């Protein structure tokens, strides 16, 4: 870890600097009394939530693999709790749900910790996929059986399988770079989340044409700005990756686009279930799934592309 520690400290310093700027802007606006009280309160609540998230992730990354895995295992747990709240289920699914939370989730993270790629990449798409429906069937199946088992599997894929591919970046063998692989997590989270923020800000200023008018205010203009921004961020922090400048820009762009598509998919699910947020765990932002949807979607793609071209 030591080789990456200096670079990581630098990146974390940069992020905390940006947050400090965001906080100072909020305080300045408050003192000058320009923005409306309500808008300002929402802004400050969000910035404060960003502080908590950035500091938590930074501390975990600095403390190493085990703590990072524990942090993402907790995110998976909270995300799965939010997701399963909105899936269809009956009493027949109780054991399958219990197994998802108390067996599948911890086993997946232990397999990632162990670094057995053949196991943690197949455990949920193969073993859980085949075994959990058997549990539900044994408890009496019932109405909408296919829909119910599919929803349970989908929840596990997004909240556990995809999420666990963020810390799984620590166990890819990238030769000399492996000692610094914690920086890949910082890179992925940074480009996806900053891209998201740009979609939001640019969309509010110049957004005209909506991507999916019925489900989300995201606009094509905002997404285009986000894509350019993510690629620029990626290129400018290329020195923390093994990708090279063009490679880093491309990886950032791919991650951003998959992540944005994923966030819209999860928005469509929320719309269908008649809720505006997945949960309330992060003040001003909603649930864990609301915050990390794009990172969850981008993580496996980022993982497998990295694995294919650079391992």
């Amino acid at each position: 870890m030591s080789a990456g520690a200096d670079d990581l400290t630098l990146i974390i310093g940069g992020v905390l600097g940006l947050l400090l700027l965001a906080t100072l802007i909020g305080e300045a606006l408050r003192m000058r009394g320009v923005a409306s009280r309500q808008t300002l309160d929402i802004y400050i609540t969000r910035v404060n939530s960003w502080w908590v998230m950035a500091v938590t992730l930074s501390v975990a990354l600095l403390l190493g693999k085990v703590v990072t895995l524990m942090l993402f295992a907790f995110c998976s747990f909270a995300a799965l709790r939010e997701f399963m709240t909105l899936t269809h289920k009956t009493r027949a699914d109780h054991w399958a749900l219990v197994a998802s939370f108390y067996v599948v989730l911890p086993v997946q993270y232990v397999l990632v910790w162990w670094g057995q790629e053949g196991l943690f990449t197949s455990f949920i798409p193969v073993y859980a996929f085949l075994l959990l429906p058997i549990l539900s069937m044994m408890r009496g199946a019932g109405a909408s059986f296919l829909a119910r088992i599919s929803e349970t599997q989908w929840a596990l894929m997004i909240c556990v399988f995809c999420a666990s591919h963020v810390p799984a970046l620590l166990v890819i063998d990238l030769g000399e770079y492996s000692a610094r692989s914690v920086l890949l997590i910082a890179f992925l989270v940074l480009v996806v989340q900053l891209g998201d923020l740009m979609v939001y800000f640019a969309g509010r200023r110049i957004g005209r044409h909506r991507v999916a008018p019925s489900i989300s205010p995201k606009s094509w203009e905002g997404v285009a700005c986000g894509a350019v921004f993510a690629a620029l961020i990626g290129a400018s922090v290329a020195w923390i990756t093994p990708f090279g400048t063009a490679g880093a820009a491309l990886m950032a762009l791919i991650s951003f686009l998959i992540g944005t598509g994923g966030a819209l998919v999860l928005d469509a699910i929320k719309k269908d279930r008649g809720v505006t947020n997945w949960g309330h765990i992060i003040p001003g932002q909603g649930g864990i799934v609301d915050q990390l949807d794009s990172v969850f979607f981008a993580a496996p793609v980022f993982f497998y592309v990295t694995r294919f071209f650079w391992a």
Partner: protein
Amino acid sequence: MIRILATISGQFLVLFARFITAARAEWRGTEPVRRRRIYYANHTSNADMPLIWTVLPPVLRRETRPVAAADYWLKTKLRAFAGRDIFKAVLIDRRAEHRTEDPIAAMAAALDEGSSLILFPEGGRNMGEEPLLPFKAGLYNIAQLRPEVDLVPTWVENISNIMPKGEIIPVPLSCSVIFGAPIHLREGESIEAFLERAADALRTLRPNASTDYSVSTGQTG
């Protein structure tokens, strides 16, 4: 000694409930203030009462006592410890023929000592499809005896999926507890009209109530 153990167990229970449910209180039409109140709630699971107890701010939780069935809470030593020492429940006997003490008098006595109460006016767990069972007379009787006490409708959402009847391992799912505007017994109001109004005030708190429920107008108070 028992008191320390009960306090620690209570804290542990709150943490456990938050871990499983990410429990959240939504105060809609009322604030969490220190007044003598009766939180009356829907009842679908044995976890309802601990959940309401968990989401109350600590200062209110300390002075809020659930009204609970003696036959259930005194069955084993562990339950008796939980019921009497952790929750400080007002234990009442549901079987009229075995009663040595009038349950309404016991509730009034607890209110007079400055406590608030958690009450499940359906009288038992609701296992059916209807959101609420018809209320028993208890809520009316205590409202008549102590008309100045706030009756706060308290809707517990989604707890029944966490531990369906007969299961022993809870599945983690998000829950919320929604507190509505307090109601009071009106001058000369009949028991039927009052219980219907109280049930309506509770039903309207239910999320998505407007889509699958025709709410009668002019009766919420």
